[in-house]
């Protein structure tokens, strides 16, 4: 279970959110919605511990996610705007590194290439892949991670219809396995698991 208490964050002279609370229980998703610039990405980065909030804390199973990072183990799989792939290395080199980072073997990612349509591109440099293919490759990292909490920033961007369906199905599977997902989305999406929506930018 993930819960946030009293999060306040200012960016420059703009208050993005003040005393924000939310809780997500295992097996459900939280959808972040709001206009461009309303702080969706920033909130996701706060959850990941990349951005420090002015006040408040994010807790995982009741323990401070930021302070006990090392003890909690692999909690978060983050897929942000940037893919986190090295454009000058091949897809296989990138995924091997990603797999090693989260303690998985080579076969974990190789099985995922076929359904994602990347099987023919493993030896290509990532900079030669299209934006959609890079997004799919970044998705592989989330899929192989053992982390129970998926934090995804516009996971459907750049993807075609098949890619979107694959992502949503993967999120559903993850939730059915008792995981938690935090998604910042613009589109209307259909999840079979229970989900809550958090609207940002509307000053309550």
């Amino acid at each position: 279970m993930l819960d946030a208490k009293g999060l306040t964050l200012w960016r420059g002279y703009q208050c993005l959110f003040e005393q924000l609370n939310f809780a997500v229980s295992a097996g459900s998703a939280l959808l972040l919605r709001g206009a461009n610039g309303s702080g969706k990405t920033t909130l996701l980065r706060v959850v990941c511990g990349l951005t420090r909030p002015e006040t408040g804390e994010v807790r995982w199973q009741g323990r401070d996610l930021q302070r006990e990072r090392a003890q909690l183990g692999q909690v978060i799989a983050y897929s942000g705007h940037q893919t986190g792939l090295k454009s000058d290395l091949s897809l296989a080199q990138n995924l091997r590194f990603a797999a090693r980072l989260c303690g998985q073997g080579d076969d974990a990612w190789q099985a995922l290439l076929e359904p994602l349509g990347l099987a023919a591109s493993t030896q290509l440099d990532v900079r030669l892949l299209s934006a959609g293919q890079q997004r799919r490759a970044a998705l592989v990292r989330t899929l192989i991670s053992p982390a129970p909490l998926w934090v995804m920033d516009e996971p459907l961007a750049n993807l075609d219809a098949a890619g979107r369906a694959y992502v949503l199905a993967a999120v559903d599977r993850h939730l059915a396995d008792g995981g938690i997902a935090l998604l910042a989305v613009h589109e209307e999406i259909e999840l079979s698991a229970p989900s809550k929506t958090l609207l940002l930018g509307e000053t309550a």
Partner: protein
Amino acid sequence: MSTLGLAAAVLRRDLALAYRRWGDVASPVMFFAIVSSLFPLALSPQRDVLQLLGPGVLWIAALLSMLLSLNALFRQDLEDGSMEQLAIGPQSLPAVMLAKAAAHWLVAGLPLILLAPLLAVTYHLPGSGVTALCLTLLLGTPTLSLLGSVGAALTAGVRQSGGLLALLVLPLCLPVLIFGARGTALAADGEVISGPLYLLAAFAVLAASLVPFASAAAIRISLD
């Protein structure tokens, strides 16, 4: 994943990247070679003048050449999001930083040491001076990579950070420069230089054990 395995994986990835972008790696080394061969041309070809200036000039050229490649140390990692991925997990960020500094030394420091004997000859340094130059560079350049990595981590998010990086890092590098250049000059005069060598080694050990923690804190600031 063990901390050692993490460091090894990051080191291997950075070396693979350097191999793919060998032009970026070669230009600071060429800079070192060209700058240090400009001095004999511009000053005087006299043997005793060159012998006097050689150690200092070679050391300054090595320092500036290493500074040149520092700018890019974390820039790409920050832009493509791979540093975020390393910073989110339970992995030890200082270990990542140590591996990054080690990779920087291997591609920006080690080639200088291999090239230094050749350039030392143009300054008429005697055999003892050439040996001392290589030894002081071998012990001193790792410290430069480490100190530079803190500056690079702090300025990674800043645009046009080259000047700022130099202002931050160069003053910290002064002790290494002093003992490196003076040690080489003393050895060229036939003196025993175990003192400066021990000091440079102590700097390197101190930097390797403390600096990664500072760079990890600095990169967290840059990621914010």
